[in-house]
């Protein structure tokens, strides 16, 4: 059986800068893959290439066997791959419910307006935003907007969800709640690729971790393997003893 997402030799050059340089990895169905690396390593650019926001300079992206390289974003979503933005981008002058209804209307299944509203309502319950459904998206707190990003992406009913730093800037309680949502998603069979700087969360949630530095993949493996990798420690983690602490017992909502 082939992987759900198959990225091979993906490149993006901005002039002489190789923002993403020959990156290859795969995501299996129902898997959570952590994507870590220092700022500017090319993580968000990688997401932009996969979702068609930018055309890649080279390489291929396959989703469930279909080549989606260079497809425009709206076709990528319809094929079952949804994403969130690192810098939240709510549709400000629309209600929370309408934000999600857009996601549901034009997602992997094409839904009519009333059906899409129902789906959006269910997803808002899941991320605990149901009480705010009639408020304008601009009036939400930053934590609310992050949850809205996740909800909107989920409304598309994706097979694979790309999460770009959804835990950053949240307080411990909010992080805990979000992690519960991710666990529920995994149970529902949705695969996740998460860019995250919150190491304890990444290490505990991920089945595997990919590390980027200067656009190149420098390591890949089980969380504890990656955390003890000398190259990763030097490029990103900094402390050689960190692995023991990070991969310690799971505690929802803990901060590093």
């Amino acid at each position, binding site marked *: 059986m082939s992987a759900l997402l198959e990225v091979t030799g993906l490149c993006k050059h901005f002039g002489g800068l190789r923002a993403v340089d020959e990156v290859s990895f795969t995501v299996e169905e129902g898997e959570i893959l952590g994507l870590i690396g220092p700022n500017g390593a090319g993580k968000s650019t990688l997401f932009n290439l996969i979702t068609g926001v930018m055309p890649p300079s080279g390489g291929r992206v396959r989703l469930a066997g279909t080549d989606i390289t260079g497809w425009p974003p709206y076709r990528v979503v319809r094929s079952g791959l949804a994403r969130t933005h690192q810098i939240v981008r709510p549709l400000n002058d*629309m209600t929370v419910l309408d934000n999600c209804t857009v996601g549901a209307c034009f997602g992997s299944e094409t839904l009519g*307006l009333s059906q899409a509203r129902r789906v959006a309502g269910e997803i808002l319950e899941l991320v605990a935003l149901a009480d705010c459904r009639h408020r304008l998206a601009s009036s939400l707190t930053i934590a609310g907007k992050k949850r809205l990003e996740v909800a909107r992406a989920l409304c598309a009913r994706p097979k694979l969800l790309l999460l770009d730093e959804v835990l950053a800037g949240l307080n411990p309680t909010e992080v805990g709640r979000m992690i519960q949502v991710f666990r529920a998603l995994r149970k529902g069979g949705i695969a996740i690729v998460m860019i995250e700087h919150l190491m304890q969360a990444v290490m505990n949630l991920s089945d595997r971790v990919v590390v980027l530095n200067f656009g190149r993949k420098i390591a890949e493996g089980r969380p504890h393997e990656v955390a003890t990798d000398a190259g990763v420690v030097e490029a990103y983690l900094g402390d050689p003893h960190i692995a023991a602490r990070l991969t310690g017992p799971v505690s929802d909502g803990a901060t590093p």
Partner: protein
Amino acid sequence: MSPKKPFFWVLVAVIAVFLVPVLTNNVSLRESLLLAAIYIILTSNLNLMIGFTGYVNFGNIVFFGLGGYIGLYLVTAGGLPLVAAAALAGAAVGAIALVLGLGILRLRGAYFALATIGIVEAIQAFVANFEPWGGATGLYLSFQAYQALGGPREALWTVYLLLVAVMGLSLFLCYAVKNSRFGLALFAIREDEDTAAVLGVRTPLYKATAYSLSGILPAMAGALFFFKQGVIQPEQAFDLTLSTEAIVMLMLGGQGTVTGAALGAFLYEQFRGILLTSTVFSSFQLVIAGALLLVTVLFMPGGLMGWLHRRWPRLRKVLE
């Protein structure tokens, strides 16, 4: 649409007002309301672009002028009845706008606005040199054309009623789009086009469809209006001033709201009438329109309807 929706009764009330001159046989009131109907048609359809999609179209008058030319040409050269000519003009302009829209809607913001002005100039220059349409002298309707509608007097009433029908259709179109899946996609594009695409909205096609849709009814109105005038010339057909005035009306009434666009157009027409007949202001009418736009944008960015909605939030459901 069912009589249970408040908008149904709003529409009925508006059309009832426009039928007053028919019942009272009042010709001067008819002329005033005819202009108001045209303004409402232009403004409501412009609302689809500015209010719903977030693209400022300075060249909305192109649809009106082209519709007028195509309609009059079909009546004079093709010998078609007025209603058929107007319907064909609407269809033709809609098709042209769809193709044009797929191209120019790749531009955003100020660049799109500039391109729409360019389109007005280009089409005006083309028409002024297009011999089948009479070039710079324009097209003239023979007196015979009115006989088909039972003489000139009856023809004017028929044209008025047809324009009121097109106005009703414009309001209904705005309402229907606003409450549809298509409209939701347009709102998403207005708020953030890139995010809309990431959420699955096929943005190039939706924008071009909105642009095309916003051209059909103004084109029909153009055909009807210039049939009534009996003559069409490039400067009157592609008048950038009227194009800009439509934007003033939309901002005044409240962009993005169906009733606001209509209210703005109606009030502007009444206001313009007062200014044009006063001895002091008749030559300053456009200066005052400009000042009105400034004041609206500065102090009442949501327009009259936006202000009312903020004041009485429950009105949102009644006056959409």
